[in-house]
């Protein structure tokens, strides 16, 4: 069908589901251990159960606002249905969480399909704060595209952090795709410009631009991002086709501010959430899906080159609730 078929194929295979299961193992273990603790010795969902549930969701980094929303919805259901047993809580929670994810994660793939086939490279600009795993995510992304027979060009526009360019070049060699770089301390916008131009020259399908990590409260650095974006548009007027914000899965409430500020500067179109294997916090995915109308597109669940998955809410919720 299109650009992202290779992801889908993988997902259908049992290994991929297994790796997501394994990656989210901690989240699940924690979540259900505690959920069963919360309802132990009780028949109906009462105030105390809801209180425990609040703690449980908050503890998974879902965030206060979304948690309160979920609790309110469940409260309303309890009031309506009069008698809700604790056994049903599991099912209700699953429905509520699936609903939260549903609101923002549907129908995004079609856009990508058409964008890839327009004869011009599909330009992805990757942004985020320091240390969230941008370069690693790009390496993994490049690998997936390359493995699917797509022609990929990488642009090393993180010219600030020591050895960031080298890091991307090594990834380029590993994956076997060309990297456009001007070395350290050069103008990132000009690297991005050249990378996009090179992509056009080579007839590439995908151009991925790495940018330096920046804290979202640094005005000048955020302005720089807008500039990088503008400069690319001189080569391809509608580039970048995707602005991918990478968020660290272990980040707490600050993730919301990051999403907000980066969106202000660059109109983020998709999210990648990394390091979900190491934390008990798959919950941040739920909170972010609820608070922003930006789809979660990728999740990183391990350190291997293949440990980047296209986010699928059904797989995710299934994985979260599988006992």
């Amino acid at each position: 069908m299109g650009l992202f078929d290779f992801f889908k194929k993988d997902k259908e295979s049992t290994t991929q589901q297994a790796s997501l299961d394994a990656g989210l193992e901690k989240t699940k273990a924690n979540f259900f251990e505690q959920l069963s603790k919360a309802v132990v010795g009780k028949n109906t969902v009462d105030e105390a159960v809801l209180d425990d549930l609040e703690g449980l969701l908050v503890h998974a980094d879902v965030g206060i606002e979304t948690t309160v929303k979920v609790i309110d919805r469940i409260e309303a259901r309890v009031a309506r249905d009069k008698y809700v047993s604790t056994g049903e809580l599991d099912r209700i929670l699953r429905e509520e969480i699936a609903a939260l994810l549903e609101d923002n994660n549907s129908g995004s793939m079609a856009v990508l399909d058409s964008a890839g086939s327009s004869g011009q490279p599909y330009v992805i600009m990757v942004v985020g704060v320091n240390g969230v795993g941008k370069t690693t995510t790009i390496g993994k992304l490049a690998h997936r595209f390359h493995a699917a027979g797509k022609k990929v060009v990488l642009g090393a526009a993180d010219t600030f952090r020591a050895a960031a360019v080298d890091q991307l070049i090594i990834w380029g060699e590993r994956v076997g795709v060309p990297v456009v770089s001007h070395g350290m301390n050069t103008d990132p916008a000009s690297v991005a410009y050249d990378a996009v131009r090179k992509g056009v020259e080579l007839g590439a399908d995908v151009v991925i631009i790495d940018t330096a990590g920046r804290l979202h409260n640094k005005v000048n650095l955020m302005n720089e991002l807008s500039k990088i974006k503008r400069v690319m548009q001189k080569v391809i007027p509608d580039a970048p086709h995707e602005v991918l914000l990478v968020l660290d899965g272990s980040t707490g409430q600050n993730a919301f501010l990051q999403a907000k500020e980066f969106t202000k500067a660059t109109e983020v179109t998709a999210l990648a959430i990394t390091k979900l294997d190491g934390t008990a916090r798959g919950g941040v995915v739920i909170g972010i899906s609820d608070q922003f109308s930006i789809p979660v597109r990728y999740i990183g669940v391990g350190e291997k080159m293949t440990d980047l998955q296209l986010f699928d809410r059904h797989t995710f919720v299934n994985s979260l609730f599988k006992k």
Partner: protein
Amino acid sequence: MFDNLSTKLDRAIKTLKGQGSISEINVAATIKEIRRALVDADVNYKVAKDVTDKIKDAAMGRDVLTAVSPGQLMVKIVYDELTELMGGEKKDITIKGDPAVILLSGLQGSGKTTFAGKLASYVKKQNRTVLLVACDVYRPAAIDQLKVLGEQIGVEVYSEVENKNPVEISRNAIEYAKKNNKKVVIIDTAGRLAVDEQMMREIEAVKAAINPSETLFVVDSMTGQDAVNTAKTFNQRLNFDGVVLTKLDGDSRGGAALSIRAVVEKPIKFISTGEKMDALDLFYPDRMAQRILGMGDVISLVERAQMQFDKDEAKRINAKIRKNQFNFDDFLSQLEQIKKMGNIKDLMGMIPGMSKAMKDVEIDDDAFKPVEAIIKSMTKQERANPDILNGSRKRRLAKGSGTDIQQVNALMKQFDDMRKMMRTMNKMSQTKGGMAQMQKMMGGMKGGPGGMMR
């Protein structure tokens, strides 16, 4: 957030009014609010629960003062409690042995390598010879990164490109340090997840092999609820001596600091506040408590201002203020500097009391634009001698800047007020030095945008 919290608390403990002291009944609802506020600042849920229980005890029986609202009183109690929890005795890092060895550990992307560079620079400034050791054999170009940093700060970096065994590398590095008369060895390690058994065993082995006098756990201040588990596991495996909080130049509230402190009871020894090699600071519990509570943080504001303000420029302007020669050129240059400090609303939020006033006001950074336009429409002569601006000149300015005469007049009035205020402050503060100077600047700033935003 602070104002927000105290407003919420005011509402929650309305029943308190008319009563002389805080009691069990009227405090219950507030405790929940406080807990949510803490959790919102990324304090671990369980830690927040413990803390609020303590706060409840501390609050019980306290007399309600007439001068402050009960909400404010509660916030003060919370603030005191947090400060105390994160406080305790201040401990510097232990540099002992020949060579003294410092081991760094933490998750991926927490900022270990950058911190390694900063620490090396810090130790070097104490006139000790330092050797940085690159033990991150996994991440591509991690060794290069440390080498680049080492070059920047003039510290040698030890690495073995072919060797993939961190235990051997660190052992060899210590031998190398002995031979080459390096007194302090700082070992940067690969980022690892606390759940990665193999990697955790590796760093245990490194520690056992080199017996460091200081083991530090480096953690991102933006970390959420999981900070507790990570810190706990690293502490069990490494029994680290202290914590380093990174990326505090961001706007995270840093609740992780409190969680970690509460769970592992190890001191926070450094905070890291930027990408430059000297952006390293000691930890102050009171400031952290303010940050977690989102209280107006005047100290941070002043520091941020100091960081951005050009010292020479500030000196020049200060001299002009003293001579009462402050003019539009100076005003413009001040505006430029303020803009460099970041988002105006954030800055305002740092001034106590302001954040409440600014709660619903949306200020964008364009607020200064008309002011700038007016000033830039002035001739050199006009900027230097604002007094010559008469009606006809003002009309010209309004036209030239695309504003109207009212706006020009408002600016003039504001500028006059500013000068008056500066004169007064000048008389008041006879003390010299950075602080007094900054306060003047701040005074000027407050008067500056304030008038235009009405």
